């Protein structure tokens, strides 16, 4: 596995752990379809939340949030629709969140969570 995938994997673990601690139920991890991948699908109080996790091992090339572009969000929105269709779940509301993880080697990873970015 390439180093960058390793970093991304670790970041997703951190994000999943953070969300579970915050009272979310984990529904799906790395759900794939022909259009792409959703990192995390979680639920809380009847809301279904689609989460994009972005991990960086430092901020030398900018904050992780800065790497989330309009195009990426638009794809996430389409994927959210696709997931709802295949799962058959009736969600009260759906939401798209972003989690940024800064995982400096030798430090505790820092997790930041933005709710309802789309």
């Amino acid at each position, binding site marked *: 596995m390439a180093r960058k995938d390793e970093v991304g994997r670790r970041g997703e673990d951190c994000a999943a752990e953070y969300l579970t601690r915050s009272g979310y139920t984990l529904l799906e991890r790395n759900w794939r379809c022909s259009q792409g991948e959703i990192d995390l699908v979680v639920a809380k109080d009847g809301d279904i939340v689609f989460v994009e996790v972005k991990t960086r091992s430092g901020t030398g090339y900018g904050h992780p*949030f*800065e790497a989330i572009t309009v195009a990426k*969000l638009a794809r996430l929105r389409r994927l959210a629709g696709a997931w709802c269709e295949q799962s058959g779940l009736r969600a009260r509301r759906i939401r798209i969140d972003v989690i*940024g993880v800064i995982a400096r080697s030798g430090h505790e990873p820092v997790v*930041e969570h*933005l*709710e309802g970015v789309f």
Partner: protein
Amino acid sequence: MGLARTRSVALIGLAGSIVEVEADISSQLPGLRLIGLPDAALAEAAERVRAAAKNSGCALNPHKLTVNLSPAALRKHGSGFDLAIALACLAADGVVPAESVGAVLHIGELALDGRLRPTPGMLPAVIAAARSGYRTVMVPAGNADEAALVPGIRVIGVASLRDALIWHGARLEPIAVDVLSAPAEEDSVDESLDLIDVVGNDEAILALQVAAAGGHHVFMLGPPGAGKTMLAARLPGLLPELDRAAAIEVSSLRSLAGLPVGRSLPTRPPLESPHHTATAAALIGGGSGLIRPGAAARASHGVLFLDEAPEFPASVLDALRQPLESGVITIHRANSIAHFPGSFQLVMAANPCACGQSGARDTECTCSPMAKRRYLGRISGPLLDRIDIQLRVQRITSARVRVSEAEPRLSTREARTRVVAARAAAAARLVGTSWTLNSHVPGTWLRGQRMRLGPKTTASIDRALERGGITMRGYDRVLRLSWTLADLDGDSIPSADHVGRALYLRKAM
């Protein structure tokens, strides 16, 4: 999440209005959104501010920043808002105290490395700030001298965004940087041009003094090589020193045009000599979006010299009629109206015809009468009508040069002393009126009960008027010139000789 505000200045012409710069941080994906009618250069401020903040050691908050420039309906131009935007963003983030940033007015463009670049239009912007009651402005160190020309304002010159943050109380270590300085000022008027260089041409020297003393506009007609350009270039030297208000206006216009402004106010009047390919926008000012001052505005309180005047397009010359009449240049655009001062002294020079030899004593003119009429006809009647002194300049013969070399000649310094004395006499006579120069006085006032000259004095122009040699308007102009001639000679009232000489200056063509 935070909110902070500070203030900056938007310029329309020379008038500035205070713009409130508000920054808000919201819990969204990173971005810096600028709202409030920015133009292209200002919309790019987002990128400059982001890079400058990062390179100053205080990266912007990794959430969404919304920056509003209020009043939102006012169109804003240029890069002078960068510093205010950066500080509002960082104050909203809590890097610096919002109260400190809110109390100071900020003007300046940021470089990507966080240094501050000198910004055009600094002087008028700081004047506008002072008029609106602001006492402290923060400007780029390269502009600090220019901003300090405005009285009653505390100027803080900072070299970089980091220095600005430290001044506002951020806990950062200062880093010394090379100050980005404004280009050095070059003297616009050459002081080495002296009236003493002019040989012969005594009428022209007299005409220049009259023009300087009374503020009269001049039109010089003569063949190539007669010395028209040489004479015109020496007129600014005859004008008195600029007073403080005029000097600030001259510097403001230079600053607005993006020309360097030195560390002190100019004392000498400006000279502008645009080329005859100039457009109306280049001459009086214009431009889409940002309205910039033209040559006529930059010549305010000085001399606007149009060499080869018939070669200018007629529409360009006629654009000068309104400023000549009102002393103010007004430029209308769909979204704004800009006013510039337009109290320049107009000097036009022209050849008498296309070949230039008409009326010369030594050579033959090859132009047909029709071609001659068409050539001078390009200068419209209404424009010529506003010019008091219309003078014919002749080539100097070798005999005249030999005679003149023996005679004492007038230097610029002596002539300027006479001009200053004449202006003082005119101002003393005009005290209690709204005019200070003879050229501003309307004819009705000169012909009124108080100022009326005796019939013996005005006999020559009365006769010229009866015979149709001059119009009523021309009559008034001769009267004004007579008063200026009397002022120059130190007489309290014009004599018949003064009126005769004035008629010569008016009707020499």
